[in-house]
Every structure is written in C-alpha cells, then in structure tokens.
C-alpha cells in the first residue's frame, strides 16, 4: 500500500531558480535563502525519508494554460513533462517523470469522490513546479523521485476556497492509501508566503501573519482551512493567496509534526517560507 509519509511546503519564487541556474547560491543575497534548505536536503537524502513519488501541488503562472482554458483543479497524467519557456527560455532542469499509474489512480478516485479534476496529458511545467524541485533536490542529472503534478487555479477569480483545497488534500490521501504498490509518497504544497506583485501596494510583506500561519499548520489546522480569500488578500498580499495550495498538502496529513522551518525576507518581492512536516497517525 502506498503511504503519505511527509508534507513539504515551500515558496516557488522564480529568483530561487535564477540563483541555482546561474550559480549564485553563495552570493550574500542568496546565501540566507538557500541555507534554510540544507536541513531538508540532508533529511530527504536519507533512505528512510527518500520519496518514491512526490505529489507536487502548484499553480501554473500563465504558462501551460492561458485564458482559453482555466481548470480550477487539474492533474498531470502524462509520462513526462518539460520545463516551460516563460519568456526568458526554459529553465535547464531534467525532464519531470510522472508516476502515471498513480496519477491516473488519483484522478479516477478524486472524480469518484466528487472532485471534478481536469486531466492533463500534454503540458509544460513552469517555475511553480520546477523551483521547489531545485530548492530541495539541487541540480541532479535526473530528479530522484517521480512527480505527480496537481495544479490549482489561483490566478483567475473566483478560485477554490481554502477549505475546498484542504478537502482535496483529504481526498488525495484516501486515494494514495488505496494504491496497491508499496510507495513512499510525499505531498508538497508550494507558493506564498506573503507577497504582492501588482499595483501601488506591491512589496507587501506580513511576517507576523506568515509566522502564525506556519505555527498553525500544526497548532490549528482548523483555523487555517477557514481563512477566507479576502483575508489572504488584505493580510498576505494579492499573490499570498497561493497559500491555499499549502492547505491541499495539509489536508493530506494527519496530526503532522513540524520537523524543520525556514523563513526569510526578502526573496525578490516575496517572504520565503519553507516547512517540513512529518505525517502522524
């Protein structure tokens, strides 16, 4: 039986990718950004922690999807995906290989569980998916885990509520536990934390709100799932809404225990947050 063993959340700021791709990790601006991932790199390299599959929850930033098709929830089922050209050329990262059997199994189970997923068989994946992989796995020749991409629309409103995202996570957990092979599965939530990339209010950062959000991933998940969109927008900035994707991860965990936390301001326009949660019982 497949089992979700851990949840990992991280911001997916494009600049993290730039730092890695251009070999700038040791520069003073980048050093504190990357230092917070050292613990995770060591942890995930241990055989007992190394995932066979990562279910990676992210949002497409107008790369695979334009305005012509806007799926609220989508799942990538193809065998592999390549890095998207977002206007500055594709990031030089290995192909992303899927566990298609598990992806289709999750898709079927989610739909039967009344989550009407859009199934994606062809797409390129942008920084939302590739930056977390680089931040945690570095620059290997091939990614050390298979990746099931789950996409959440957080661009065109209305987007799914935080509670709906949490319940999607619960449904993913049930689907994974019904998969017959023994697999170590992690679920990653990406994006956030507070940031705003638009308008005169751009540059907004709310460290207090972010830290409470990090605390409550273990202390009070029930509060987090009830946060309305307007609170994210007011308190964490217009792009802070990406944090609903962390709730998909959270919903897939049971009594999570915090193993590691990293928080740093700024990474580009963003408050960078990263947390590792062990799945409890």
């Amino acid at each position, binding site marked *: 039986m497949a089992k979700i063993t851990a949840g990992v959340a991280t911001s997916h700021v*494009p*600049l993290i990718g*730039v730092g890695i791709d251009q070999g700038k990790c040791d520069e003073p601006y980048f050093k504190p950004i990357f230092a917070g991932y050292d613990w995770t790199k060591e942890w995930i390299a241990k055989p007992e922690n190394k995932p066979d599959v990562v279910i990676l929850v992210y949002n497409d*930033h*107008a*790369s695979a999807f*334009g*305005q*012509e098709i806007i799926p609220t929830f989508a799942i990538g089922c193809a065998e592999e995906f390549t890095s*998207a*050209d*977002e*206007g*500055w*050329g594709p990031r030089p990262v290995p192909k992303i290989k899927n566990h298609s059997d598990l992806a289709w199994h999750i898709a079927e189970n989610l739909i039967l569980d009344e989550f009407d997923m859009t199934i994606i068989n062809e797409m390129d994946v942008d920084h939302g998916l590739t930056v977390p992989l680089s931040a945690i796995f570095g620059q290997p020749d091939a990614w050390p885990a298979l990746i099931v991409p789950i996409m959440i629309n957080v*661009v*065109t*409103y*209305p987007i799914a*509520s*935080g*509670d709906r995202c949490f319940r999607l996570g619960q449904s993913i957990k049930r689907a994974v536990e019904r998969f017959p092979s023994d697999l170590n599965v992690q679920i990653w939530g990406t994006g956030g934390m*507070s940031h*705003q*990339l*638009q*308008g*005169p*209010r*751009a*540059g*907004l*950062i*709310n*460290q207090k*709100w972010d830290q409470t959000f990090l605390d409550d991933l273990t202390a009070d998940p029930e509060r987090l799932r*009830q946060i*309305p*969109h*307007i609170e994210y*927008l*007011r*308190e964490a900035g*217009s*792009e802070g809404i990406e944090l609903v994707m962390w709730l998909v991860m959270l919903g897939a965990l049971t009594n999570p225990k915090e193993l590691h936390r990293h928080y740093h*301001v*700024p990474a*580009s*326009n963003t*408050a960078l947050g990263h947390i590792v949660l062990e799945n409890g019982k």
Partner: protein
Amino acid sequence: MERNNQDYKAAFGDIPGTLVFTAERARKGYWLNQFCMSLMKPENRKRWLANEQDYLRDWKITAEQKAALLARDYNQLLALGGNIYYLAKVFSTDGLSFVQAVSTMTGMTVEDYQAMMAAGGRSPDGVRSIKEGK
C-alpha cells in the same frame, strides 16, 4: 467563505492599490493577456522586439491597451484587464526581473523599492482596507 458572488467581489474593491483578477477584468483583458502568451516563443519575442507596433497589428487589442503596452505602463495594463503573470512575459522579454518591473507600479525608484524589500517589505498597516483606513 463568502458564497454570495456579489459580496465576495465587492470586498475586493476595498483593498488599497490592488486589482483582483476577477472575471470582469479577465474578459476585458482577454486578448491583451493572450498576446502576452505569444511571447513565450522565441521567434515571436524577436518579432515583437523588432517592431512592436507592427506585431500588435495582428491582435484584437484596444488602442488604450496598445498605448499602455508600448509605454510599459503596468498599472494601466492591470486596470485594462491585464494580469501580472501574463504581463510578466512582456517584462521578461525586456530582460527585466520581477523586482525591476514590479517596482515601476509603486511610484518608487527600483533602488528605493529594493531597499524597502531588504528592510522587510511594505507593512500591511494602513493598507488593508480603504473603508476602515487600517
């Protein structure tokens, strides 16, 4: 969670200096945003940079949107239905980073904006709500 769409959207208008990408904006900016998507292909970026006005002729974009694009007036582009992740294709083609492009919307120089970010970013105090002034 607000389930009345009218109330849900009305609250968005109360956030200072912020334009939430609602269906109304998405409809208004449809071709503007789709034009941005075309810049994901290197051959299109080359054509666009070689002659912007000529490139825009193929697109159903309003004169107002075209003028804002040529001027790289990102606040105006947002008001005309553009979305920042789409507009990112335009400023990436210009070789600008997110920080450089985003700072142009704040009325600050890029140096002042970077200094603000390095000092912890813009405080939410006073810019949460227009109505409540907090």
